[in-house]
């Protein structure tokens, strides 16, 4: 076990995947000698060479579109889109091509493509550098969307994503890149399971509790754990669930928890309107109607463009906004 930052853990996971399978190719802007703008690919260009760690032209649609062709040729491309707000030029290739080629070919073609995207805010960046576009992609059948919240998950989930026969949007919470945790970088990762109850898409109860369930993924998990700590000081035990996957969502894990606690708060940085929380609230209402003691509440971004850095603390689902929602579900 080594105290490792999330960015370094993903780096180690990429390295393990590249060592395991020489068909794994990294491609993106500035991922070579620079190591990526967040240094997630640091050192890989040096060790694997420019054919395995490819500095591409500055063209997001081109990155994803050529990755599709490489996948057809038997490779496993791992694309890096430099920032969340720059993924939109590739939106067409991701949603009309990457997501659908297996379906269109009746399974004759597989698309083992991973698209890594640093996502979310909280780092004081300028516009287009802090967005959470996951709902736009979760609405597209054929894609898998995951987001690690911890260094350990960064290490294992990137390897599982690369092993997936389906395309995976791998969202990296950039505000947590330098959070350290103990990770066993020598551990063998189970790459066999792509189902929802174990493996890449399984949610995890990261703190048990009995009074209300709070769920999130990626950057909000840390906020939810902080909220649970504060709430515990006030006598409220929150059960914190790290979803880890936005598509599919591990509804069995959520409903099992809500059936015990009767209350649910969902938090994410993506805008609340038509966001992942809306889907979770609707499905949990269908599954747990008679167990719910309060309506499912959501804490997310507002219906505004991602704000300027000096306003993002108000926009993000921060500790106070989560605790306020917890107070409201407990008040019913």
């Amino acid at each position, binding site marked *: 076990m080594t105290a490792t930052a999330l960015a370094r853990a993903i780096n180690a996971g990429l390295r393990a995947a590249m060592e395991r399978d020489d068909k794994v*190719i990294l491609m993106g802007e500035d991922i070579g000698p620079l190591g990526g703008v967040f240094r997630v690919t640091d050192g890989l260009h040096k060790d694997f060479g420019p*054919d395995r760690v490819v500095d*591409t*032209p500055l*063209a997001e*649609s*081109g990155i*994803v*579109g*050529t*990755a*599709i*062709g*490489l*996948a*057809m*040729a*038997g*490779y496993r*491309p791992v694309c890096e889109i430099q920032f969340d707000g720059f993924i939109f*030029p590739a939106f*067409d*290739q991701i949603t*009309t*091509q990457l997501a*659908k*080629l*297996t*379906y*269109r*070919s*009746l*399974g*004759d*073609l*597989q698309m083992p493509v991973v698209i890594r995207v640093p996502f979310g805010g909280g780092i004081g960046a300028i516009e287009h550098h802090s967005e959470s576009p996951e709902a736009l992609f979760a609405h597209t*059948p*054929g894609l*898998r969307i995951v987001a690690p919240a911890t260094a350990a998950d960064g290490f294992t989930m990137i390897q599982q994503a690369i092993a*997936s*026969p*389906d395309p995976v949007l791998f969202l990296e919470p950039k505000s947590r890149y330098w959070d350290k945790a103990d990770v066993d970088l020598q551990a063998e990762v189970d790459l066999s399971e*792509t*189902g*929802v109850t174990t493996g890449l*898409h399984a949610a995890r109860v990261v703190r048990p509790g009995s009074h209300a369930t709070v769920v999130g993924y990626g950057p909000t998990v840390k906020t939810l754990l902080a909220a649970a700590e504060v709430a515990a000081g006030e006598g409220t035990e929150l059960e914190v669930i790290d979803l880890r996957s936005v*598509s*599919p*969502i*591990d*509804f*069995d894990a959520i409903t099992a928890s809500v059936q015990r606690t009767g209350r649910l708060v969902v938090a994410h940085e993506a805008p609340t309107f038509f966001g992942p929380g809306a889907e979770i609230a609707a499905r949990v209402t269908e599954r747990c109607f008679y167990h719910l003691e309060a309506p499912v509440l959501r804490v997310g971004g507002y219906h505004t463009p991602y704000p300027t850095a000096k306003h993002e603390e108000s926009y993000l689902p921060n500790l106070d906004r989560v605790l306020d929602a917890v107070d409201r579900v407990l008040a019913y």
Partner: protein
Amino acid sequence: MTEPLTVQPGTASDPTTIVQLLDAEGHRHHHPEYGPFAADLDADALRAMYRDMVLTRAFDTQATSLQRQGELGLWAPCLGQEGAQIGSAHALAPRDFVFPSYREHGVALVRGVDLRDLLPLFRGTRHGGWDPRAHNFHLYSIVIGSHTLHAVGYAMGVQRDGDVGTGDPERDRAVVAYFGDGATSQGDVSEALVFAASANAPVVFFVQNNHWAISVPTTVQSRVPLAQRGPGFGVPSVRVDGNDPIACYAVTRAALERARSGAGPSFVEAVTYRMGAHTTSDDPTRYRDRAEEDLWRAKDPIARLKAHLLAESLADEAFLAGVDEEADELAAAVRDHCRTLEAGPPEQLFDHVYTAPHPLVAEERAQMTEFEAGFADEEGAR
């Protein structure tokens, strides 16, 4: 009115001129740069090209009729473009990989795809119909220009596999992307050219400039001949008479050999004409005049190769009659097959959304199965 096709001796270094080896009257012409690339076309090869053009036209005409009769939801005719498609496709080796647009019916034929398998997409029973890897012929791409990037990526894979520049004809491979004049305006095509040039990928961009992007003329897509796009990206380009199957064969063969040798990408603009509608949904009489169509009808690729075959005694009337008979049989088989195409059970729509199991798809499939079973009970009770 679109620009008249002025034929000049074309060279790869001057994409403003047009390569032609067989004129509209069926006369062969010498071409210093590309003539040698067609020198291997003997009587058998020319007859095979003629046959494939006639079969393609018969198939295409039949499919258009089937759409008019309500058997297909839509059809994208390739009438008039047989020369560009058959000529270029005959230059391909089996190991080369093709990324078509959605009207490359002639290329599909040459690649060995059963033409009947093109129908399910248009009849609405399947999104595909053939295994792309079985024929090295990708699925049709409906999103304009999207597949040019896939072609470049695939070519980058070929390159990584070491299957270029070995000098071994059994190993070296190339990739071709077919697209239209309208597609050249798409950003993806420009990005594909950037990636291809940057990676020196073994890919051939084959544009069929059929002069109309649905109802919009090529002049709206580009103020210069499309082949002039290539050099700006560092991709050698050539303009070819697209209704001349021999010239299309020659320039494509040259581009493929270049790609397979490791010399990098090429851009071919085949200047042709779509004699029919863009698809069966539009009405060309609204956007172009009859005189223009007549001008191009006189350049018909099948008529000109037929004239050549007869003038040079490379084929006789018995051969031509045999091809016509084969075409009639194909058309009849296509018609019969089309009517047998039916969609499977509704639960089939959940197949292949993902390769690995996905709980949401499984849940919704179960919901639909249960829902549909409810109707079965009702029918049983009657």
